[in-house]
């Protein structure tokens, strides 16, 4: 019954001004290093003393990691660009409004002013057992408290869980996957580029991590290709209240129409599985069909066929089905 939280433990703070310096520091401190972006997720962990890094590397002074630039019909977004900047950028709004909508749905204006897109996709899960310091699987223990018989698991998975049933809390993640964004990852040893779809980690692969980022790696930028520029987009986030609240279920989709039929589509759902997932079952129902209510319903039904709700989250099944249906049909006036 650890009701009382500890104070923030001491650590060494670094403030590099270049990516290279930051990567050197990350390499030097390895597992003991912690990259600090806007701090919104970071400080929760440190203040609660649940994570105790020895070296905190503040990325705030690295100007090359910040800003949005047009790039062959697409965009390159620095990882340290704030969510407000992403949400309001004319380039994003014009061509990739899906991402702008997603960024606008994060928390509150204060948090969007401070939080970065890199931190938003790299943030840890909000499972309250884990965040409360319970020694669960994800924290290195050998039990999942959220899947226990009397557990509180209203916010947890209905799909694809493996031992850990926590969901990914990021609002921008499903939009980035729908837009087929590419994540640029660097370490002192070099650079790799990973599709957003593969960036988020399933507990089946590594239960202690939410993304493919290794301890010595930084996400430096996110590239959005021209592919889905000005497509038909849909974003809807269901939450318990209208601001300052994480998603229960979110859908983000991009569709291309041709002759009244769906030529291509990417439908992504978050809040239902350990990572944001493309609903390929729904996509295959959709492609080649008109985007109407009945196809929407069929796609929604297909999407939840494999869902296995926990004790308190059966409501996520109809919710997911209905959001997919609405993503396909479009919002009512």
């Amino acid at each position: 019954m650890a009701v009382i939280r500890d104070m923030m433990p001491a650590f060494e703070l670094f403030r590099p001004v270049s990516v290279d310096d930051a990567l050197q520091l990350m390499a030097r401190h390895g597992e003991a290093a912690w990259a600090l972006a806007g701090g919104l997720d970071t400080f929760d962990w440190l203040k609660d003393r649940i994570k105790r890094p020895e070296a905190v590397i503040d990325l705030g002074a690295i100007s090359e990691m910040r800003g949005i630039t047009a790039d062959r019909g697409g965009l390159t977004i620095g990882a340290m660009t704030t969510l407000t900047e992403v949400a309001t950028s004319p380039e994003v709004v014009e061509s990739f409004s899906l991402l702008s909508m997603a960024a606008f749905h994060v928390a509150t204006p204060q948090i969007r002013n401070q939080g970065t897109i890199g931190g938003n996709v790299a943030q840890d899960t909000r499972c309250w057992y884990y965040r409360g310091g319970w020694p669960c699987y994800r924290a290195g223990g050998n039990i999942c408290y959220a899947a226990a018989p009397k557990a509180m698991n209203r916010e947890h998975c209905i799909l694809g869980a493996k031992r850990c049933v926590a969901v990914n809390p990021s609002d921008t993640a499903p939009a980035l996957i729908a837009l087929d964004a590419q994540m640029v990852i660097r370490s002192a040893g070099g650079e790799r580029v990973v599709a957003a779809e593969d960036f988020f980690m399933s507990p089946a692969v590594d239960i202690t991590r939410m993304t493919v980022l290794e301890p010595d790696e930084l996400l430096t930028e996110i590239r959005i290709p021209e592919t889905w520029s000005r497509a038909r987009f849909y974003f809807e986030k269901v939450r318990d209240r209208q601001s300052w609240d994480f998603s229960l279920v979110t859908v983000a989709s991009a569709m291309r129409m041709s002759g009244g039929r769906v030529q291509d589509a990417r439908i992504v759902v978050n809040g239902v599985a350990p990572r944001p997932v493309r609903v390929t079952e729904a996509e295959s129902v959709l492609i080649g069909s008109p985007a109407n209510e009945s196809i929407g319903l069929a796609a929604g039904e297909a999407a939840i066929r494999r869902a296995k709700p926990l004790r308190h989250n059966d409501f996520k099944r109809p919710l997911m089905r209905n959001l997919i249906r609405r993503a396909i049909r479009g919002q009512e006036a």
Partner: protein
Amino acid sequence: MERREGISKLLGRELYIDDVPMDRGLWGATVRSPSPRGRIREVRFSPDVNWDEFVVVDHRDIPGENHVWLIESDQPVLAADSVRHVHEPVVLLAHHSREMVHRAVRSVEVIVDPAPPVLDFRLPPGADGIQHGTDNVFSHIVIRKGDVDAALADAPVVIEGTYETGAQEHVYLENQGMVAWIDGDVVVVKGSLQCPYYVHAALTHGLGRAEDRVRVIQSPTGGGFGGKEEYPSVLALHVALLALKAGAPVKMIYDRPEDMAATTKRHPAWIRHRTGVDLDGRLLAQAVEVVFDGGAYVTLSPVVLSRGLIHAGGPYACDNVRIDGRAVLTNSVPFGAFRGFGAPQTIFAVERQMDKIAEELGMDPVELRRMNLIREGQSTATGQIIRDGADRLEVLDRALDLSAYREKQEEHARFNAAHEDLRRGVGLSTYFHGAGFTGGGEVHLSSVAKVEARPDGRIEVLTSNIEMGQGTLTIFTQIASESLGLEPDDVVIAEADTFRVPNSGPTVASRTVMVVGRLIEKACADLVAKLGDSDLRGPDLKQAIVDWYRKHSGGVLDGAARYEPPPGTSWDEDSYRGDAYGAFAWGACVVEVEVDLRTLGTRVLDVVAVQEVGKVLNELLARGQIQGGVVQAIGWALMEECVWSDGAMVNNQLTNYMIPTSDDVPPIRVDFLEAPYAHGTGGAKGIGELPVDGPAPAVAAAIEAATGTHPRVIPVTPERLMELYDGA
């Protein structure tokens, strides 16, 4: 008039208790029970910690009686050999370092031999669950009027309904916090609290000290809502015990998770109605059963129950009423005072029942209420005859007009037909709230207020009623300055310090303005009379005061007043008959919602709250009270859900316990009708709690109108609504 402490609050200059620097002080923390019920086998202190550095207090260090003085003496200050709820305080620690003391809490293990806990207040306890009397009932009250059984037997129609309301966390901005130090042979406690003299009494009992060796000072308080009515007594005892043992100042500040987990909440309630009506909808008989979850100790449950029951019949006239209510023990963290004090729960039930009656009779819910609202000269469930000049029908009609209730209904029919996913609806409630303490409470308190003139002609007001954001400093300044014809700057409000201010009672029950304000007026008159000319006001008065001090060097010119009940009121505590309150305030609320049938989320689109509260003394403060109360009630109705495990709240964080944000509530439209109350300050009745009574049932009624479901349990979360609405 400018808000007295407004600027300092705006600029962040107001020093709340955690902001007060402490010289060479210690930080205190609490070790709590991990278990809902059982005997304490052992308290194990980890050998990894050097305990010599810590001040450690347990029940053996309590110099007085080991219970928190209140209605009954069942709640220990620190558990001695058994525990009755998770988070029950067992051991206190203090250390120079805040970090060290909080870390050390985890190094103390309370080992409990478990006994079977009672966790569901709706079920009768098993034999092995009895922990209070023979049946775990803290309080059982029955209100009787007429012959209910005969009237039910004769009624052409009898309608039954069962309703439930959940717990609610206060979410005051400032968590509980206190500092204690020793000054000579006096123990001084300063902190965030609503009732200085409750804390004072608890300290004298628990510490076994004479009244003049205990001093309680209120610090600027960042919200209370009832959460700082009885709980601060517990914290004050803890911090004082640590300070006494340490011989040094000690500060204890709860953080949000501890505050939410370990302190009181609104009582969960289960309420059943059986109502006999004639075919026109007239109420013939109301039989109401009420059960409140009291939690592990009695605390204030009997009085919360009492107020809940007095309001359980609603603002309606009915000749045959039986309201039978119990507050019962469970092994949950004790429930306590919360704005509305039991009335929001019972009003939710009776208002939902009125809607059910209307539906079963095929009647308009507005007309059903119009027919049954108390008329001048009719009486409440306790037989209190209402003759206050207030027009309850006008309150109702004003709410209908302002909200365009009828037009909205037509508009919604069109909207709903044109939409696949969205449904709109409008709901109404009518309600009342008794102002001040129930029954003989005010007589028993016998409050005193004082005013003291200063040699420069200014006037100081001395009461134990406190500012917690609701505007006491401002309204008291206004009352004193208006009654003496002085400028607001000529009035000083004394710090609520038991060494200086008289006991004018607690800051609860919507009584501050109505009851204590009146005492200030009388004390002012008493002071002026001492100058030999009762008509002195304004600059003449100031001059007279200055002259008085020139003549009486060393003297003090003051005035005082003691509470006297309004003439002609009577209350019988044993039979629960008579004038339960000096006055009732009346309200009507209309809520419009939109429900998304695909997510079953509800958005509130419009709220109109109309109330008759006697005279409105300060319109800005009054509107603020109504708006804040409405928001709190909307949260309770739609999203504020405490999740329990072993009788303790486990979603004790503001990311999991949802309170409404400014995006979740529309602009709240407030209007007042005024029928001055002869015995309230300037004609005022209480206002603080009424606004919490009405919105929840109106929200549920609006959801009902929108979706055709019948919400009878709040909060109406999307999941609950999904269960009711199977077309999702």
